[in-house]
């Protein structure tokens, strides 16, 4: 049972344009969401997070939007840069469980071309 889903395995975007990565979840108990970026031969690197009490969080070129009613979140990267090419994972947790357990999606491979 995949509780966090990233239905697009890959995305290709031109440099300077917007990249939009999507994520859906099924567990209504999830109240904290994160995006990680992963380069080959490296561990996942934290990008940005959002609590369920918010619907938007912004950090530089990265913005995460949360739609709780639709159980959907998205990561916007503007403008996209070639260095953003990586695999992006959406992750969720239930803070009431008092655990570090993160539930990850299967990832979306983003390629930013010149």
């Amino acid at each position, binding site marked *: 049972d995949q509780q*966090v889903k*990233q239905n697009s395995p890959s995305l290709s975007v031109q440099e300077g344009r917007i990249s939009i990565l999507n994520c859906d979840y099924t567990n209504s108990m999830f109240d904290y969401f*994160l995006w*990680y970026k992963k380069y080959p*031969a*490296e*561990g*996942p*690197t*934290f990008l940005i*997070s959002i609590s369920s009490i918010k619907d938007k969080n912004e950090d530089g070129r990265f913005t995460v939007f949360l739609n709780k009613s639709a159980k959907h979140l998205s990561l916007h990267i503007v403008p996209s840069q070639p260095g953003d090419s990586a695999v992006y*994972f959406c*992750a969720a947790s239930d803070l009431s*469980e*008092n*655990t*570090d*357990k*993160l*539930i*990850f*999606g*299967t*990832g979306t491979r983003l390629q930013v071309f010149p």
Partner: protein
Amino acid sequence: DAGVTQSPTHLIKTRGQQVTLRCSPKSGHDTVSWYQQALGQGPQFIFQYYEEEERQRGNFPDRFSGHQFPNYSSELNVNALLLGDSALYLCASRADRRETQYFGPGTRLLVL
């Protein structure tokens, strides 16, 4: 300041063997979690260690066990290896419940 380190980087084992993977958390971090990332999948939570005890466990069989030492470093042990155990094993650490977890580069295990 070194981040999370893991050893070895790569490992090849045969079915039925046992393996031990090691993790040193980021300086100042006392909580370690282990994840398994199979090819084409996202990381899956194995277990978490804090104060040298297993605090929570994911949906993994007892063949997967761990340990945390007084210096907060940790080991992941897998017994009776199966072909399906081939994966990237990631270690993550944090200092405070409100902080983000930092991941190591992982150990890639291949079981033949």
